[in-house]
Structures are given as structure tokens and as C-alpha cells.
């Protein structure tokens, strides 16, 4: 089930970002935020009580006017404030359902977008760490593990085995452009981990591969998970984190995403006839 969902969503994101992979990531961000804004409007329209929202907003406006007109009449003013509070609660009640419904698609969009916007691929000759976490029952210094030689990364150091953390780490440098699979021999098992080198400005990067579970499949949908019974719990590549640059500042992609989605949502509500 999760496999199918991940495959479908991955494909959708790939199709959306095809035109923007070779240009500044801001363009991809604008498009995904626009589509998210529209989706939010659509979900809101479908799941909210549009009439109820309209009515609550009108009542708030009316009581605001009442307060202004009867500003010298203390009792009327207080009553109006109370009514504004009640209408506000009604307005919020009407918004709860669509917000709850929206959480699911937004969460999926965020999870998938993270792999497009949060990391930079490795440059040629750039160094990075490959870290493997073992299950608690295995001790790194006694565990037979090695990286199978290839022509796209150069393993520069012997492994650093940290028994307390159940971790084994290597430093490697990137050699050849492309998305490659690093092969790791862990005991009897042969494992792989993707590595992205010198890719386009907007490319999908998977820093972490984990063991199979519903949560891991939801949170790390880019690569096929490790076997449930694998001695290896996770394989990680330390990619440099990315950000979107504007006016000399580096902004985390999620901030840009929320701001732009809200701006697009509010800008287009008239066009889609949605009462927010």
C-alpha cells in the first residue's frame, strides 16, 4: 500500500518538477506552493461549511460596526465584544474540519518536497560521510562489513567503528556525476544506497535509507527500504543542506513554502469562489 502511494506521489513530483530541474530552485518552489495553495483552497471549499463561515464572518463585521456606532454605550459595546468572541469561535469551529482534512495531503507534500529542496547533491571531489547504524545486537568492531569498490566514489578512510553508537562511518569523495548505487556487503547481505553527484539545481536526494516499517516508508519514500530483518538499521549520506537564497539570505525551504502557499491561497480564493 505504502509502496504504491510512494511510487505515485514520487512520479507526480517528478512530473511537476521536470521543467524546473535546470533552473533556480525558486521556480520549482513557486510552482509547488501555487499548486499547494490551489489544493488547500479546493479541500477547504469541499470540506468546510462555506455558508456557516460566511455567516460567522458577517456577524463579526456587524458586531464590529455595532461597537463603533455605540462606542459611548458601555453595555452595548461589551455585548458586541462578547458576540464577536462567539462568532469567532463559530468561525474557528467551521475551519477545524477542513484543516484536519488538509493535514494529510500537506504532510505528504512536505515529506516529498523535503527530498527536492532540503539537500544539495555532492559536487565532484566533494567529501561526505557514509554512516551505517547497526541493530543493538551487533557490535561494529566485530561486524563484517565493507563497501564494494566502484568508479563513482572514492572511499578515503578506513571505517570508524563506534561500538557505543552501533555506528560505522567512512569518508568518501564524489568522483562521477549521476545518481549511483553504492553497494555494501554487510555480513551475508548485500545492501545498496543511492548517492547523487553533480546533479541539476533541483534534484531529488535521499540522505537516509531505513529499515522497513510503515512510519519509515512514510517518512523516507524515495528509496526502497532495507529489509525488516537486516542487521543494518539505516544507511545515511551526509549531504550538504540546501536553502533558497533571496537578497543574500539563505531561507529554509519550508518557510518559503508556507509563506508562498498562504499568499497563493489568499490571492486565488476569489477566483475559486472560496470563503476562508
Amino acid at each position: 500500500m505504502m509502496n504504491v502511494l510512494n511510487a505515485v506521489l514520487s512520479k507526480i513530483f517528478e512530473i511537476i518538477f521536470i521543467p524546473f530541474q535546470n533552473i533556480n530552485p525558486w521556480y520549482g518552489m513557486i510552482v509547488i506552493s501555487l499548486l499547494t495553495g490551489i489544493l488547500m483552497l479546493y479541500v477547504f471549499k469541499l470540506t468546510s461549511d462555506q455558508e456557516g463561515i460566511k455567516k460567522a464572518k458577517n456577524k463579526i463585521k456587524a458586531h464590529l460596526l455595532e461597537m463603533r456606532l455605540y462606542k459611548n454605550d458601555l453595555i452595548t459595546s461589551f455585548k458586541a465584544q462578547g458576540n464577536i468572541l462567539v462568532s469567532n469561535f463559530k468561525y474557528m469551529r467551521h475551519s477545524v474540519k477542513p484543516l484536519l482534512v488538509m493535514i494529510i495531503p500537506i504532510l505528504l507534500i512536505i515529506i516529498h518536497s523535503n527530498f527536492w529542496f532540503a539537500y544539495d547533491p555532492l559536487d565532484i571531489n566533494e567529501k561526505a560521510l557514509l554512516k551505517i547504524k547497526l541493530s543493538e545486537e551487533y557490535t561494529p568492531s566485530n561486524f563484517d562489513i565493507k563497501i564494494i569498490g566502484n568508479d563513482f566514489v572514492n572511499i578515503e578512510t578506513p571505517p570508524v567503528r563506534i561500538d557505543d553508537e552501533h555506528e560505522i562511518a567512512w569518508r568518501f569523495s564524489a568522483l562521477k556525476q549521476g545518481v549511483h548505487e553504492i553497494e555494501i556487503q554487510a555480513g551475508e547481505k548485500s545492501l545498496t544506497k543511492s548517492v547523487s553527484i553533480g546533479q541539476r539545481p533541483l534534484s531529488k536526494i535521499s540522505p537516509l535509507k531505513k529499515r522497513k516499517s510503515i512510519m519509515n516508508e512514510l517518512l523516507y519514500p524515495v528509496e526502497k527500504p532495507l529489509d525488516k530483518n537486516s542487521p543494518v538499521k539505516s544507511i545515511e549520506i551526509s549531504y550538504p543542506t540546501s536553502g533558497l537564497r533571496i537578497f543574500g539570505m539563505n531561507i529554509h525551504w519550508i518557510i518559503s513554502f508556507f509563506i508562498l502557499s498562504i499568499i497563493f491561497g489568499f490571492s486565488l480564493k476569489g477566483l475559486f469562489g472560496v470563503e476562508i
Partner: protein
Amino acid sequence: MNNINRREFLKLGLAAGSLLTLSPSNILSKTLGKKATRKKIIILGFDGIDPQLLKNWMEQGKLPAFRRLWESGDFKPLRTSIPPQSPVAWSNFITGMNPGGHGIYDFIHRDPDTYIPIFSASKTSGSNKKISIGGYEFPLSGGDVKLLRMGKAFWQILEDYDIPCTVFKIPSNYPPADTKQRTLSGMGTPDILGTYGICNFYTTKPSEIDPDIGGARVHEVYVIGNQVHAKLPGPDNAFKKEHPESYIDFTVYIDPMNPVAKIKIQNHEFILKQGEWSKWKRINFNMIPTQSVKGICNFFLKQVRPEFKLYVSPVNIDPADPVLPISTPKSYSKELEKEFGPFFTKGLPADTSALTYGFLDDGEFIEQDDLVLKERLDIFDYELKRFDSGVLFYYLSSTDQRQHMFWRHIDKLSPIYDEKLASQYKDTIFNIYQTADYVLDKTMKKADKDTIIMAISDHGFCPFRRQFNINTWLKENGYHKLIDERKQGDTSLFMNTDWNKTQAYAIGLNGLYINQKNRESRGIVSPGTEKDNLVYEIARKLENYKDPETGENVILKAFISDKVYSGAQTSHSPDIVLGFNKGYRISWASPLGRLPKKIVEDNRDKWSGDHCMAPQLIPGILLTNRKIKKASPSLYDLSPTMLKIYGIPIPENMVGTPIF
């Protein structure tokens, strides 16, 4: 969209989008243009290149670019400053004045109220107004860093006449003098602790290290379960009342078998093999939740076992987000960082203290200095490529640093000459001259017929074999009195000096001061005849003093400041400036007010070449692609020369005159 079609509209959109990704500094630096000049000047400042060594190697054909420049123009020794210390010498060059005008007499001056040594080049002060809440203090105003060099710098004068100028890493310009020209501060720029650079060394065997060290901190660590937990010290936390030292915890994970370790500090995780350097790591010392001090440092995993040894460089100011001013405009250091990544910002980047104390050996020190050189040469290429008008000044410190530290390998009379090491490292000095030759070659290839090239150095070099304890000499000759004779040599900063009976004292590398009434807080010598007689008497005795072991004169010339300085800042000068004989220099103990028992001792430090001698022994170099008309050019002649080239009147306070 009446007059533009859809494609043009999209193009405009793309252009606007690209503009969004530019920083304001990028936009500004591309729009703030200056007058284009037909005449151009490129000055290459190779700190400490010695005319004699250079001439020998030029004549042997080993430095082809220097030789070409000599043959196409001229080569003369360049008279240096009194004393020939880099901050003094480069200030002469910058201002066209002598120390009497620009006020820099030494690396170290003294506070006449406290007799405490102070930095000569800059003064840092904290905020005066603070609010205290609980255990915290909140400043109501910013602190201040002030450049103490007086007089207008040549690039400030050129700016008045709209001549563009880029000045890379010039010494004696921290904080950078106010200007719109591109300048990056050099020697004198502190680390984030505000010092000339304090490294950290983590070891399981601190007993191997001399406990009496400055310029470094040694931390004893323990390897427990193949892990080392340690702290990297940072600046004092001015937001807390007691101003406790800030620090960052870090962990080193050592592989049980392989000589390799993973280091985890803040958001950085990296693996080093034994004997490897890390890249720059950007770190944050958190003061309060909203305030932190950013810096950059790199790590060197010297040894994993049997003893664990890790060196961490002084934490440099981050050029991308400088906590103290290091460039003009402020965006210039950011621009270079964006282009090349973090780079050494500390004034003298190679860590000579680390070599002295054995944290780094000769080869490891060269590796560190090679990192410095790589950064410097990359930036040089960048600046040379875009240089098309006005003046470009470029500075290289490695020429000076390597001669200081490796002279012992070319000097068989050095007390620590080691034939084996010498055979391995004897070419280190020649190699750095070759690097200078490479820089010059690139410059000559770029220069057109209207470009004047000057390759200069601020001083030459001499061996430093014997060290002179000037304050001990003053004491032995009755000019300096101690409170307790038995404690001689035990204290520093003149803690054992009886100021009510002391007539003279020395602070800094060449300066000797009379304990003068109404100038020093506890002065006893009256200004006028009494002081003048004392100055002459001490100067004469110093010039006659002979090393009991070698029979050689220690001081070649004791300069009386009234005779050699002129200008508005003469009141701050030492009373006598010591011009040491070849092979001699002030001792390591003297500059900070310590009196060892012996007057002259061997210098057993790896810092084995020096230039704090009599200036006539160690002139700098001047090579240019024009004939030099002046018979004996001096550093302070070069600023007036630049002004003359552009037809700018030479200010009256400049003592130099044009060389062409």
C-alpha cells in the same frame, strides 16, 4: 502587456527571479563604479623578502620573473623603518610618514599609567552602558574597535581623487580605515578571542609540553571507550555578569584499530585520518538564546595512539559573518567567502606558536601554511583577473613566516641547527621565494605598458641566534631596581619592579623607555637635561656592550627617538629604539617585562630568523619595471610615488618623496 510579447515577458520574469537570488552587496558592488585610469599600479608586498637572498637566487637564474623585472626596470634595497618591525614598516608605506607621524612604534606599546604592555595597532573597548537583570548584563550600546595608526592611508587619498584601489591583507590596517575602496585587513587582525591567535591542543600527555606557554592552550583529555570528550574555548560571555568563558563541547570517536577518528562538533561530523587536516568548520559560541559569536576553525588529527593528540587552529573571524570589522566595504569579505569559501582572517595565519611548542612539526606547519597560500593565491587570481584600473595591492605573509621558522635550517651557527632536519627542510625558504616569483610572473603577464609593477618587502632577514635580556641589562647597570632580588626571573609584567627607584625599562621588541616624571605614573626622572643625559648614557653603554660569550657587540645602534622621528605622534615614542647586531634580538622574556638572570642567552626557539635588528642590516626589496631615480629609496617614499603617478599633490605631513 501592450508592447511586449509573451516570450519577452517570460525573459523579464526570469531576470527578475535571478535578481532575487543576488545579495544587495552584489548589486551594489556592481553599480558603485569609479573612474577608469589609464595608468595602473600593481604592488606586490612580499613580507620579509631579503635583498641578499633574492639577489643570489636571481643571479643563479632561480627566480626568473624577479630577474626579468630587474632587467626591465630596476632593483634596489628598500630602506625599512626604525625599528624594522612589520606593523611599523607597513605603516610607513601606507602613510608616507615615519612612526613620529603615524604613531606605530612597535608591535607592543605600554600604558604609562600601569606599565602594562598594550597592542600598538588597535584598541577594543566594550559597551559603557549596561542593564543588569539577574545574572545577565545587556549592553545598551555597541563596543568599539579603533585603529590606532594615524594619518591618511594612500588608498584614502586616492579615493578623494576617485582612483579605485583594492588593498588585500595589508598589515597595520585593523580595523580597516574608513573608506569605500575594497580593503581586507591583514596583520593585526585578531582571532575571535581578540588575541593574535590562540590555538588549542588536546592531548592525553600534557607533561610533554612546556607549561610556560603563551599563544596556545593545552587541554588534558582522556580516551574512554575510544571516545574523547572535550571543550573548545571561545570568547568570554559579556552577557553574563561574571563574564565566564564560552565553550563548545565536542566528541572524538576513535576507531578501535585504524588510525582514524570521527569528530562531532555542533552540526559538523567529519572523519580525519591520523595526520590529516579538516576543512574549515563554522562554529557558534552561544552567549544567550538570541546572541552568538560565529567563528571558523580547522582541526588537525596529529596522533590517535598510543597518545591522543589533536590540534585546533585559533578560531578565526568568519568572513561570511564577521563579528568584528575586517573589510571595507563590509560586503567585501562576504564576497570573497562566497567565491572561495571560508578563509584565514587572522592577521598572521600560519600558527608559529604551534610549531614552537611542538603541536605541529616542520612538515605539518608547512602543510598549514600551504593551506594559507592556496587561499591567498586563489584570491590573488580573482583580484588580478578583474583588475583594470587604479591600484592593486596584494600581500603575502608566508614569505615572512617561513623565514622566521626555518632560518635554523640554513644557518649552521644556529644553536638548534639539526643536520638531518636541515637536509629535509633547507629549501623551504627558497620554495616560498619561488612562490613569490610565480605571483610576480602572473602579474607581469597581466600588466600592459601602462601598468607600473612594484615588488616590495618591508624588511629583510637575519639569523636570530642569541637573545638579549634588556631589562636584566638595565638592572645589572643600575637603571632598573627590583623589590625582591631573590624573585628575579620569577615574575612577568614588572610585578617585581620597584618603580620608585627605576630609571628605565623596556617593553616591546625594540623600545626602551625612561621612567619619566609626569608621563609615567610613578616616574622619577625629570624631563629635560636629566632625562637627556640618561638617554645618551644608556644609549652609549648599550652600543658598547659586548656579548660575554662571543665578544660581539649586541647593539649595533641605539637610536635616540628625538633624532629619528618627526611628526604629530612623537610624544608616544620610546626614548631609545634598539638596533640589534646581526644574530642578536631582544629576548623572549623582555617584551612582556620579565627579567631572567642571564643578560645574553642562546635562542633555542624554532623562531630562528628575525628582522628586529638595526635597519641598515636588513633593508627590504624594491623591484619595479621603471628606472628608480632616487638613490636610496625608503618605504615611506612609495605612497608619495603613487600620488605623483596620478598627479595628486603630496600632503605636507608625508616625509617621503617620489622614487621616479
